[in-house]
């Protein structure tokens, strides 16, 4: 009997250790991760163009989460030739794409480990260029792992044509600019023209805009849409519109603060879900995507320019986009969504190439215009957007020939990013997840808010949420 207990304990120990075994082991990286804090103020940032050491790297490592930048580089960077799905060549430098999907934070986990090991990595494994999204840009930008663009010899004059908000996102707490984007992702209201004609009697962007000009009108229209047997969109579609127009940051003095506009999202959405005018589908899921075809009976999506060519499946037969059935207007409030920023990794051994890629892809007007026309991206150049808005070259087939650039350019000027924080991604995600329970009647508002707070503190143990 005794022997059995012992052997049983041994089995239990062995099995238990299987899941208990994830601890320890990276104490080595403890100190290297301190955020940039002052100290470098003596360094002159402008005027002197930095002397870059000659490129010695044979391998150029790019970290990103999908194929988007790869296809932009393939199409618009003249020296780049594709070798296979994850390799390319620029001159005699091998380009290696390290693509990790963003799902479940996998991209950031992977990038974190690679950046923390950057110093000790062999020359061929060092990251040269990495991409970040606005939601978590500050997490990387506000550290020494991202190089200031001024150290690459990129001057303010080079970047003068870019929208200011795109630079605010990647400016660290010392005021140094550490990244650049080719996109200006002001976003708006993408509506189904057929449905608009049926319900509002018109599909003209100005008149549809009048019907959704503020949240009260939007809610009224949503009820009409529901009566006609359509759903407006998902509550998760409208979330960003509200969350971009908050009056304070998510986290203030290490405390989670729920803004008034977020409260408004919760209350408005609950009313609309109860009236069956909005649903609660998660973004990107099959249920959410059904509105891309006429049979899905969805009135609108909220999205920026990349949404047009990336999410509406225009090249598939039978989609609304394929038939040119979408329209675009500004919607209840201006906001932005996403965008991809290029950051130079500290320790790169191909600084000149990094500089050239950043300059070509984010400031070269000819390239940017090409991107706008070929890929329907709303590019980060005031001049190019003005040109596109003023003539017919900006007309998009999937919008039934409408030119969305006047609205997009106007939106990009209006975007205000004074209220972003490094915690935005986690807070936004957890709030949406928790509130879904309230919208579906599985919990009271307070219970759902408590669950949100619990989840945020799990993600960021340094915060409090009471």
């Amino acid at each position, binding site marked *: 009997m005794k022997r*059995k*207990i012992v052997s*049983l*304990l041994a*089995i*239990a*120990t*062995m*099995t*238990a*250790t*299987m*899941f*208990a*075994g*994830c*601890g*320890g*082991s990276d*104490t080595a*990286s*403890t*100190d290297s*991760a*301190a*955020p940039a804090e002052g100290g470098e103020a003596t360094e002159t940032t402008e005027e002197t163009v930095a002397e870059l050491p000659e490129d010695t790297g044979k391998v150029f490592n790019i970290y990103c989460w999908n194929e988007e930048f790869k296809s932009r580089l393939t199409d618009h960077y003249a020296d780049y030739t594709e070798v296979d799905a994850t390799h390319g060549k620029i001159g005699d430098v091998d380009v290696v794409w390290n693509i990790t999907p963003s799902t*479940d*934070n996998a991209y950031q986990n992977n990038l*974190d480990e690679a950046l*923390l090991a950057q110093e000790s990595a062999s020359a061929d494994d060092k990251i040269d260029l990495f991409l970040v999204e606005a939601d978590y840009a500050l*997490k*990387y930008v*506000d*550290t020494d*792992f991202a190089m200031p663009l001024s150290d690459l010899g990129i001057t303010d004059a080079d970047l003068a044509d870019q929208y200011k908000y795109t630079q605010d996102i990647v400016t660290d707490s010392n005021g140094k600019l550490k990244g650049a984007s080719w996109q200006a992702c002001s976003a708006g209201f993408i509506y189904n023209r057929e449905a608009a004609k049926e319900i509002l009697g018109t599909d003209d962007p100005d008149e549809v805009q009048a019907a959704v000009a503020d949240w009260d009108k939007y809610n009224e229209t949503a009820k009409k849409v529901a009566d006609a047997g359509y759903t407006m969109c998902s509550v998760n579609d409208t979330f960003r519109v509200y969350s971009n127009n908050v009056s304070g940051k998510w986290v203030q003095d290490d405390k989670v603060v729920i803004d008034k506009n977020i409260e408004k999202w919760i209350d408005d959405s609950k009313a609309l879900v109860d009236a069956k005018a909005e*649903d*609660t589908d*998660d973004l990107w*899921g*099959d*249920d959410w995507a*059904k509105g891309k075809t006429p049979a899905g009976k969805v009135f609108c999506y909220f999205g920026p320019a990349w949404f047009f060519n990336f999410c509406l499946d225009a090249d598939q037969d039978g989609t609304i986009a394929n038939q040119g059935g979408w329209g675009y207007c500004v919607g209840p409030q201006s906001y932005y969504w996403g965008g991809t920023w290029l950051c130079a990794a500290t320790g790169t051994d191909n600084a000149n190439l990094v500089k050239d890629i950043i300059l070509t892809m984010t400031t070269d007007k000819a390239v940017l215009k090409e991107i706008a026309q070929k890929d329907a991206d709303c590019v980060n150049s005031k001049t190019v957007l003005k040109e596109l808005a003023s003539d017919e070259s900006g007309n998009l087939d999937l919008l039934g020939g409408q030119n969305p650039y006047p609205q997009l350019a106007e939106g990009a000027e209006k975007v205000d990013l004074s209220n972003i924080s*490094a915690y935005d991604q*986690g807070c936004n995600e957890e709030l949406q*997840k928790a509130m*879904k*329970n309230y919208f*579906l009647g*599985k*919990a009271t508002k307070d*219970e*759902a808010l408590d*669950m949100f707070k*619990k*989840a945020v503190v*799990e*993600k*960021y*143990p*340094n915060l409090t949420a009471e």
Partner: protein
Amino acid sequence: MNKKSKVVSYNKWGYIFLIPFVVIYLVFQMIPLVSTIYNSLFEYYRSGLTQIGPNFVGFENYATIITNGDLPTYFKNTMIMWVLGFVPQIVLSLLLGAWFTDPSLKLKCQTFFKTVIYLPNLIMASAFSMLFFTLFADSGPINSMLMQIGVFHEAYKFMSNVWSVRTLVATMNCLMWFGNTTILLMAGMMGIDPSLFEAAQVDGATATQIFYKITLPLLKPILIFVMITSLIGGLQMFDVPQILTNGSGDPMRSSMTLIMYLNKHLFSKNYGLAGALSVFMFIITGILSLIVFKFTGKEDKDGR
């Protein structure tokens, strides 16, 4: 003298053959176990790219876990889903095992069926879970079928109701593991001396009587083994509910298991709190295994 040294050298080989196991056990099990317990005593996590700690905090992590009251909830969720899956699984397996081993039934294509029932276990749990997620989505095939035959007027939100999510998880676990259990039980049943069955038949026992009075009692050691391994596996339930609910344990975390909760702490690489949680789970697993063992192992001496 000569003879004695020969004995010693044989012993030596015994130890040499044990080395691979001992080394692997030490590296992959013992060291992580000890370091988990060690880490659980520290404040030790990452905020963004900044490492916080390790700072020694004693038993603060344990206190946090006990006071926030989450552990019992997630333990309850885990056990509910395990029982929901295990009961049908063991019934199904006993039935199939009895049929397969009963010589009087003369089942044809036995190998084929044994392979087929084992197959679900070969699919990755996450792929299986993805499949169910798509099947039971609001606009998925199950819903459109149910709506067409008129069971529901509008899509039933399987993923937003406590018991439908739990039942789906239990069903998947049951489907994935009943083949494995059947094979184990069959091995046990075939190990029973056939003369006992013959004797019972001669004495006029019915098939039901034979099953309850001979097969089941003699199967006890195997049943205990199945029960304990399944219990430990059940406590570690993770991939199926994680993928099915997209990590949220919706609705309101009613399908969140202990390991999913543990996984929440790994977002911030919170080794301290996660370590403390692991130690709690280690203790729970130990206690439960002992209970099962004590409870079912009473008459073991007579059985063998």
